[in-house]
């Protein structure tokens, strides 16, 4: 008998009696307008929140607040047009290790924990939001949900090959519980909330 069949038959023989699954929809809060809470939590975990009108304003905030910036890379065509950084055709994700800012779109934010849901199709390369030195994510003003239950309701049965909730910069407290931002991934994270949905194309 293969290990697979062995394991399955032992599990089948040893499993406890049937129990019904509990309802998780009761935890959904459903209401909008959680932007204030989102900002408060994201600030607490080391991220910044900016309200902007368009991509131009976003880029000038990056340049003004972080004057010694290096390369800015974005898979968003409108942002790409405003920066001079291009990806090498057909290469892997390794090339972004020295990108100072990666600018990508997110689907929505979650107020209770400051996380943003992003799927592979918005990243161009899966490594991009992790390997860059700093990460900027754009979401629409109305796309902030109260809890993780609301988040999974929104995600539903959508298909993606890869997706991640990202909440703030990469961090560690492994050395005597001293919090250090920038463990392996981004040292900083900025969330840009687009005031006008129509600009977000």
């Amino acid at each position, binding site marked *: 008998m293969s290990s697979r069949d062995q*394991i399955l038959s032992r*599990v089948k*023989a040893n499993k406890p009696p049937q129990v019904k699954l509990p309802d998780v929809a009761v*935890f959904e809060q459903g209401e909008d307008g959680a932007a204030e809470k989102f900002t408060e939590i994201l600030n607490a*975990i080391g991220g910044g929140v900016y309200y902007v009108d368009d991509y131009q304003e976003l880029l000038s905030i990056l340049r003004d607040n972080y004057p010694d910036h290096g390369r800015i890379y974005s898979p968003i065509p409108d942002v790409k047009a405003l920066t001079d950084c291009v990806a090498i055709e057909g290469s892997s*994700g390794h090339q972004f290790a020295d990108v100072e800012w990666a600018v990508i779109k997110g689907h929505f934010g*979650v107020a209770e924990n400051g996380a943003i849901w992003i799927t592979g199709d918005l990243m161009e*390369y899966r490594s991009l939001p992790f390997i860059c030195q700093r990460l900027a994510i754009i979401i629409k003003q109305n796309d902030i949900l109260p809890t*993780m239950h609301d988040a999974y309701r929104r995600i539903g049965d959508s298909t993606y090959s890869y997706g991640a909730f990202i909440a703030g910069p990469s961090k560690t407290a492994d050395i005597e519980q001293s919090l250090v931002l920038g463990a*392996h991934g981004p040292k900083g994270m900025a969330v840009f909330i687009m005031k006008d949905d129509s600009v977000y194309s």
Partner: protein
Amino acid sequence: MNVTGKDHAQLAGAFNKDTQRVNWHDETLWWIRAKRDKAVHGLPEWEALRETASKIKHNVLANLDTYLQQFEVNAMGNGVTVHWAADAAEHNRIVHQLLTKKRITRMVKSKSMLTEECGLNEYLAEHGIEVIDSDLGERIVQLAKEPPSHIVLPCIHKKKEEIGDLFHEHLGTPAGNADPQFLTNTARHHLREVFLTRKAALTGVNFAVAETGEIVVCTNEGNADMGAHLADIHIASMGIEKLIPQRKHLGVFLRILTRSATGQPITTYSSHFKSPQPGKEMHIILVDNGRSTQLGREEFRNSLKCIRCGACMNTCPVYRRSGGHSYHNAIAGPIGSILAPNLNMERYADLPFASTLCGSCSNVCPVKIDIHDQLYKWRQVLVKAGYTPKTKTAAMKIMSTTLASPTAYRLAGKAGRMVIKYAPFAVNNALNPWYKQRDMPEAPKQSFREWYNDNRKKKN
């Protein structure tokens, strides 16, 4: 792994020699427990979430065979190769074969307690494959040639000065520099170089969704993602109990996991791996290694609900004062003490006794495992099976005879009071384990019975 052959009490005795360090260890973990309290008190629905999480996990255990098959079908449909390992040895062989097939001799690994349980690093080293642990805490204990002492905080037992010395020796930092910011930054450069050059990455799994075939990995550092996205082959190792039925159940588990672990609202990264990147490979190894046996032990099967948050360790008065290494098992603390005897009763017979049965572990457990009840039940199983020290069994038998006979009880009481009063050196010495770090009490002049006879009976 118990390389010394010493039991929990002996190993804890060694840890307890440095009182200042014990106090520091104790306070650090209690501080994390306090952060957990603050985070969970912020959610009015916390108790309902625990109850729901526990019920979902119960449903998982009741349907584990069907969920495993459903997961396998869906994962294969996503382009993932699924492997099954009956035990640690088979798991290690599968990893080795996958690497050999690709002629890979260097691998980067993110946190996986399962690979600690299986002894994967040692096995691969014997076969000429270098593994670098990328979680900062795990990298630190790897450099120190020690196992992790905590499942969430692998080097919680290490002082920053010791880490500074390790980095000086292995990573060339200036001697005497123990600044956490500086040391972390050094590790960042060292490990980024590793991520950029390794063609294989192994990660653990926090949750696997039967409905979709996807796996979820949670980290704060981003090391699982750095490794998996940059490598050609991603291997994910998971115990079969990591399954959850549907994607929407992640909402419950991601809310309770990190709040219980460190008091954060969520980890920085909660990554959902569903399909491999174009041109790359993704493998999932489903590992049993005793779990299906534990499933059949009615009184202990609830331990399989564990989501590895570490809350029971942070709150445990014994763990905090004895350190993770004293448990000589990949998973320390209260939960480790109920999981380990399932793997080997003889070797881990001491662990269920490393507890005061205060019940704090059960109170903080986010999936409501009856940890302290199980510790108590394991003690009974282990004594019956003859795995506990003979001297203890003999002492217990004497005590039970004494307590069962009023005459013997009175005589023993009198003898005890006499000894403490007239020959205190007979008990106040190193041969008496009760004297260790305690003073023996002063002997009362008479027993309650004698006092009652003098004061009440006579008057009536």
